[in-house]
């Protein structure tokens, strides 16, 4: 069943939803990256909650004009207008008053959503039974998705991606280093609005499939997951789009393959799984890689300290140090050094002495700055320089057997 779902064999509705979700995921991942780099991920929460009054108002307007009230384009237009207004409020509050950004976001989020809830109750009393479709916008409702709905989503997603492609340089620069962009003469406020406007477009497009509460996840999770894999902004954007697309596709397929699996939450949870894998297993920034790096560092420190202790005839009590020295064949179980061990220990002690001379001498200032207790002196000074230092501290001696 899952195989069929993944290969789009499960029928018209499932295929539509899967492809639509994939498109949505890519658009959301790419757009969300700019928000994430700008450190404003939660603006997407404010935008998505601010769509509710617009949807409700559009419904009321369409019904009072005699229509059905559930025309998707009408509802989405309404949502875009109120979300846009919400965006402007966030921007205005942040720039013109002394409120911090998070307070502005939270205020717009809750007030607009509260107003939307009021309008929903108005609709409830207006024409009971006709508003059943609107609550689907909270969590998404993919059952009975029409071809026209899919077209709206596909076109919306494609347009968003096209605009992102066109504006990627200024948006990337403002997201990454707004002060530099401002110093270069860019209108940071306007580009910020463009970034948030694109997020709003993705939100509006995604209202049908995942609903307004979960579209936030699709805007935030893929960029965060992608961030673990690379440090370059263009690659983060691409990877985020990829992660979003995969979570959309796989999530929708999974949800179609079994009953009682609502589409929106499954897509989000697949995205979270991708994030968790990235968190733990990404090279460089992942947790596993950090743990391995730490263990490697620990071993180097213990080895060096162990050798220095051996050279100075000090007893070693630390179990890890003893174990490392034994495994390298440099010491016996009781802590007595072997031949190779004594040679290595003598070298380590001489290196420490050499470093001491380097750090005391003004002429070697540059090299002295590179001392960190583990650095090999041969990587910092030439043979001649080392020879000169050796002349000062007494020449190399053989280790007495």
């Amino acid at each position, binding site marked *: 069943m899952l195989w069929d779902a993944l290969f789009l064999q499960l029928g018209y509705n499932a295929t539509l939803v899967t492809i639509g979700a994939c498109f949505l995921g890519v658009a959301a991942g790419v757009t969300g990256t700019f928000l994430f780099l700008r*450190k*404003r*991920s*939660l603006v*997407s*929460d404010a935008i998505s909650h601010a769509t509710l009054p617009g949807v409700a108002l559009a419904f009321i307007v369409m019904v009072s004009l005699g229509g059905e009230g559930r025309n998707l384009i009408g509802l989405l237009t309404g949502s875009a207008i109120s979300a846009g207004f919400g965006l402007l409020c966030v921007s205005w*509050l*942040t*720039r*013109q*008053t*002394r*409120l*911090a950004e*998070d*307070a502005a*976001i*939270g*205020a717009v989020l*809750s*007030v*607009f*959503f*509260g*107003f*939307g*809830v*009021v309008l929903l*109750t*108005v609709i*409830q*009393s207006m024409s009971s039974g006709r508003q059943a479709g609107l*609550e689907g916008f*909270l*969590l998404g409702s993919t059952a009975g998705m029409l071809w026209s709905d899919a077209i709206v989503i596909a076109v919306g997603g494609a347009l968003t991606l096209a605009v992102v492609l066109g504006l990627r340089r200024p948006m990337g620069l403002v997201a990454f280093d707004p*002060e530099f962009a*401002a110093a270069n003469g860019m209108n*940071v406020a306007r580009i910020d609005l463009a970034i948030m406007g694109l997020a709003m477009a993705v939100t509006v497009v995604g209202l049908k499939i995942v609903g307004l*509460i*979960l579209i*936030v*996840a699709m805007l*935030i*999770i893929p*960029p*965060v997951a992608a*961030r*673990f894999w690379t440090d370059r902004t263009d690659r983060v954007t691409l990877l985020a789009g990829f992660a979003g697309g995969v979570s959309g596709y796989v999530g929708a397929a999974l949800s179609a393959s079994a009953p*009682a*699996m*609502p589409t*929106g*939450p499954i897509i*989000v*949870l697949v995205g*979270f799984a991708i*994030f968790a894998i990235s*968190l733990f297993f990404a090279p460089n*920034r992942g*947790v596993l890689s950090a743990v391995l790096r730490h263990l490697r560092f620990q071993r180097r420190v213990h080895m060096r300290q162990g050798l220095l202790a051996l050279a100075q005839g000090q007893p070693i009590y630390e179990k890890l140090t003893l174990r490392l020295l034994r495994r390298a064949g440099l010491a016996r179980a009781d802590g007595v050094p072997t031949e190779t061990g004594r040679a290595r220990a003598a070298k380590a002690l001489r290196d420490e002495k050499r470093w001491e001379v380097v750090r005391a001498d003004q002429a070697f200032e540059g090299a002295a700055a590179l001392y960190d207790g583990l650095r090999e002196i041969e990587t910092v000074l030439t043979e001649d320089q080392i020879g000169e230092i050796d002349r000062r501290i007494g020449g190399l001696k053989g280790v007495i057997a």
Partner: protein
Amino acid sequence: MSGEEFVPLSLTPLLIGVFAAVACALPGNFLVLRKQALIGDAISHVVLPGIVVAFLVTGMVSTWPMMIGAAVAAVLAVGLIEAIRRLGRIEPGAAMGVAFTSMFAAGVLLLEQSDTSGVHLDVEHALYGNLESLIWLDAIGWRSLADPVALAGLPDELIRMGLTLIVVAAFVWLFWRPLKLSTFDEGFARTMGMRTGVLGLALVIVAAIAAVAAFDAVGSIIVIAMFICPPAAARLMTNRLEVQIAWSIAFAVLSAVLGYFIAGYGPQMLGAQNAVSASGMIATVSGVILALAAFFGPCRKRTGAPAV
């Protein structure tokens, strides 16, 4: 509007609304000042998976398990956010976004899977509550306030919310100096020996308690409005913390009272039949108050250049 009508039908919802608003506004002051306002957003969203798990574990729709479930979910969410922040070196907003949206999605999935979508536990209720239904039918007028038999019939939410308000107010009162100091100058507070990390966590937990207690009455999303809007509006009115707290309490009470009355009686005055959602209207009124403060508040102007 006579006592016979007001006391049974409006007094308790009004009081619950006021208690909830103030209980949220008090910790909200410190959250807004510490730029942690959106932790309220995160807590409100994770209340849903908390109550779903509590329902699954206990098998019944009863308040204490749900409150404990919600509280556990809130603590779990805060822990998850910290873990993501530290392990992944991700900025706090994005960490919050990842944590609470995933937990919310898990909650919705559990809800669907356990087939409770028909029962009392529907998503809409958790999101926007049902303030108007918390009436006191045992009362027959103002004299019921002195009648122990009628008082025994007070809705539980009122007692709970009242107790929560007392706990929150006690926390703010007892830890006033440490809270004030660690909010404005954390480094100095630490040199004075205050455990600022523990205090910050305690503040978030008190906020979570207020949110969890209030969600049953006013729903979780509206709680964010109460955490942020009255304190933010108060911030624009003054430069002193004591005065800000006072303003925030005043704004919270005003939002609750005005919101409730407009929701209940506004439509009638406009010629319509049914009332609209009280909690939604409370949030809207608090937003209007914030807007007025942003336009006319004496301390609204930002000093210095805005952060780009």
